[in-house]
């Protein structure tokens, strides 16, 4: 990612755009922050917000005509917030003392002719920048039309205090007759400004000021032309500020026009969802003189605190890292640029589920998944991918494609060897989760069409998600080889992720999801088909979001089965969300993936029915009652409650895949196939130990090989007191340790752990 790409990306996340009120304010006062502080009773902080952007704050806070109110989003759910009254409520409290750092004085001298709101604002801004400002006006002194305001609204002493403050900032006031019209910068000054809102002074040459800069001549500017009736005070002050910016730039000899497009009121790009926001009327004002602080607090609490966060609200991953995609894009960019030091965004990049729901929800379709996947590919290419991030998942993929699990065969029988029109691709996760259902499904498919072949193996999703482009290409080539050897059949995937991934890996293959196929051709003969007692909610997996046909197919199958279903309230169909498996998040960040599954499980009280094996198992793992459509089709009558079927875990899935292949070769292809030798070394362990090993992702096969190796070589530790033994085994990068003791018929396992660090030398 280069800088330009980062900028384009960042601009697509609108969370940091100002709220409507701030964008509509000609001075861009942060009314959202003001409301937050007033609502929580923090008057000093509210004052600080006003002072940050307001010139003569104790004046403006009292007279502000709140153009923000017309833009307030609260107006679409009740009355807009009375920001002007909140400002007045704050301004009636003493202004907290703040230390202002003295500005180094500059040489340029500025004449401001006219001391109305615009002229005083310009003097304020220019003095703050260190220019030497002289304001000329006539008796009764600075203020112009501000002097005519009712004292209840603007007490004269408040105006006088602000004039004194201007003097303390170095502004000189001179009472003198106007020398109008001003057609050039008077002698003794470097620039001049005519403030037209002081009737005693403000007269410029007849030329209208240049609208973008308010220039009327070389170094000569005009501001304060009244707009609206009555004129907007904040508008006049904004005009003074605009002229001051031009003057400052003129004196600094820089462009008067560059980068000023959002200076005045503008339309923000911030989107705020107000669906479900309860309308609230404005807070009544007991005393017409103004809100009490309590009333102001209640009124401020109606502020919607406008934010976008559409993606963050839906995705626990985006919420987990406590920011939003714009900030994440920068972290990811910086992560790649680190040469020495820690790549702190690795975990951010590797925890994304790559499901793309955020992009779907984003008003600007911010491509978070694509950004993370691109970053992963770059890390792999630069050998910067942490080995532990996805290694286990890639080993799982390798196991699913190993000799003991992989199978690609045309149908048996007379049609088989010559014809393969259809290819059933159940997916390695379904094969691992529910091998008996896969067998029943294939039997059903074969009965309907004798030219249906079978491929057991992985679609390559883990390699794709892990950013392993070369591995994914090699895998796709392997799949293509088998598919072509079978005569390029139409592929029938059961798993939504397989369908999604095979479209990438085998784009030339015709494909139809199993659910659409069955919806179109009729259901196979089933098992006991116990119907759920209460209607389950359909859980669409994230990988089916772009597959409306598959979603409808699954629902059609459920309808044919006579299963009444509910729909989830929001994150369903095109807005389906991940269970925590996608993008291998479960591998790089297991706690976050579990939290995601829990959140998905909590979307409805109802049991779920899904057509994704990973969704089923991951939700079952966090205690949700959930069935796979396959369970409803093929569960045997003695399975009383398929929704309670436990997650088989990684180890269970691995063993199931191997058993399924062996079993199908025997039952379907009538090959004299020995069942896999998983019991060569008999292991016994308590359920607690089995759960511990699963959690540590230590597979029984590695435990078996550790024990077998230690027993045959004698290289092991022993505890004479208990008779327990300790074996270590390093098959690949990880070293496994197993604490066990021999039994008559095998071994009892008490504990196992692993590490990646290697023993290099043992000095004697």
């Amino acid at each position, binding site marked *: 990612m280069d800088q330009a790409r980062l900028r384009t990306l960042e601009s697509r996340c609108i969370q940091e755009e100002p709220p409507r009120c701030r964008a509509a304010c000609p001075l861009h006062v942060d009314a959202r922050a003001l409301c937050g502080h007033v609502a929580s009773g923090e008057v000093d902080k509210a004052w600080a917000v006003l002072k940050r952007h307001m010139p003569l704050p104790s004046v403006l806070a009292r007279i502000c005509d709140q153009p923000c109110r017309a833009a307030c989003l609260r107006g679409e759910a009740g009355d807009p917030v009375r920001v002007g009254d909140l400002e007045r409520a704050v301004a009636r409290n003493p202004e907290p003392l703040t230390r202002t750092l003295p500005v180094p004085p500059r040489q340029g001298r500025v004449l401001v002719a006219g001391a109305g709101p615009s002229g005083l604002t310009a003097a304020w801004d220019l003095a703050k920048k260190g220019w030497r400002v002289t304001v000329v006006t006539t008796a009764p002194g600075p203020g112009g039309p501000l002097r005519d305001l009712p004292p209840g609204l603007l007490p004269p002493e408040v105006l006088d205090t602000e004039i004194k403050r201007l003097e303390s900032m170095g502004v000189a006031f001179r009472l003198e007759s106007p020398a109008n019209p001003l057609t050039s910068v008077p002698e003794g000054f470097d620039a001049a400004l005519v403030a037209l809102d002081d009737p005693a002074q403000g007269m410029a040459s007849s030329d209208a000021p240049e609208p973008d800069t308010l220039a009327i001549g070389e170094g000569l500017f005009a501001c304060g032309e009244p707009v609206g009736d009555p004129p907007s005070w904040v508008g006049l002050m904004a005009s003074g500020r605009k002229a001051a910016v031009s003057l400052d730039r003129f004196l600094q000899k820089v462009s008067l026009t560059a980068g000023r497009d959002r200076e005045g009121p503008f339309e923000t790009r911030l989107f705020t969802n107000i669906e479900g926001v309860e309308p609230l009327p404005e807070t009544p004002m007991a005393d017409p003189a103004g809100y009490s602080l309590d009333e102001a607090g209640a009124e401020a609490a109606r502020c919607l605190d406008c934010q976008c966060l559409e993606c963050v609200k839906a995705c626990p991953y985006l919420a987990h890292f406590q920011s939003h995609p714009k900030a994440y894009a920068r972290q990811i960019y910086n992560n790649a640029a680190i040469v020495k*030091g*820690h*790549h*702190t965004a*690795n*975990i951010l990049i590797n925890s994304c589920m790559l499901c793309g729901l955020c992009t779907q929800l984003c008003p600007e379709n911010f491509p978070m998944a694509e950004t993370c996947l691109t970053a992963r590919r770059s890390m792999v290419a630069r050998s910067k991918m*942490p*080995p*532990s*991030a996805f290694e286990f998942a890639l080993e799982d993929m390798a196991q699913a494609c190993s000799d003991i699990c992989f199978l690609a065969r045309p149908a048996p029988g007379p049609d088989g060897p010559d014809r393969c029109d259809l290819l059933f691709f159940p997916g390695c996760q379904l094969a691992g989760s529910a091998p008996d259902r896969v067998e029943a499904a294939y039997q059903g498919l074969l009965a309907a069409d004798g030219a249906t072949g079978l491929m057991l193996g992985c679609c390559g999703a883990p390699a794709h998600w892990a950013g392993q482009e070369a591995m994914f290409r090699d895998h796709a080539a392997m799949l293509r080889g088998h598919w072509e050897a079978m005569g390029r059949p139409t592929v029938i995937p059961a798993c939504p992720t397989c369908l999604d991934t095979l479209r990438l890996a085998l784009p030339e293959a015709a494909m139809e999801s199993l659910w659409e196929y069955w919806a179109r051709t009729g259901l196979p003969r089933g098992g006991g088909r116990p119907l759920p007692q209460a209607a389950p909610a359909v859980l669409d997996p994230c990988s089916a979001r772009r597959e409306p046909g598959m979603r409808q197919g699954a629902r059609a199958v459920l309808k044919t089965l006579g299963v009444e279903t509910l729909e989830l309230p929001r994150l369903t169909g095109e807005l389906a969300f991940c269970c925590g498996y996608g993008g291998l998040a479960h591998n790089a960040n297991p706690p976050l993936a579990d939290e995601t599954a829990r959140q998905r499980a909590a979307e409805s009280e109802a049991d779920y029915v899904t057509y994704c094996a990973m969704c089923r198992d991951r939700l079952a793992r966090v205690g949700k009652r959930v069935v796979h459509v396959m369970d409803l089709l093929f569960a045997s009558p003695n399975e009383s409650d398929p929704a309670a079927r436990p997650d088989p875990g990684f180890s269970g899935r691995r063993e199931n895949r191997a058993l399924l292949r062996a079993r199908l070769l025997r039952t379907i292809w009538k090959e004299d196939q020995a069942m896999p030798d998983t019991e060569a070394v008999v292991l016994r362990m308590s359920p607690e130990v089995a759960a511990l090993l699963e959690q540590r992702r230590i597979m029984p096969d590695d435990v078996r090989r550790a024990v077998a190796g*230690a027993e045959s070589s*004698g*290289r*092991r*530790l*022993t*505890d*004479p*007191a*208990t008779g327990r*033994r*300790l074996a*270590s085994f390093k098959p690949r990068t990880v*070293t496994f*340790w197993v604490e066990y003791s021999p039994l008559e018929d095998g071994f009892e396992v008490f*504990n196992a*752990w*692993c*590490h*990646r*660090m*290697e*023993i*290099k*030398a*043992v*000095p*004697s």
Partner: protein
Amino acid sequence: MTDGAIKGYAEADARWTCGNCGRPLKPGPVVLTYLGSEFTVELMRCTACGLVLVPEDLALGRMAEVEKLLEDK
């Protein structure tokens, strides 16, 4: 884990003896390596055959932390 031998065993690890040689394990320096970095750690090992014990607490605690740090380096 920096240079110099850091203690990577607990007293309880002394319960293990070498199954190969039948000798009790004794603490001594062991050089560990990961992703190109090396550390010397005091671990229980067999003085005869050099069989080393990496105890559970070390593997899942400090060692895992250092592995993570090195992977993100």
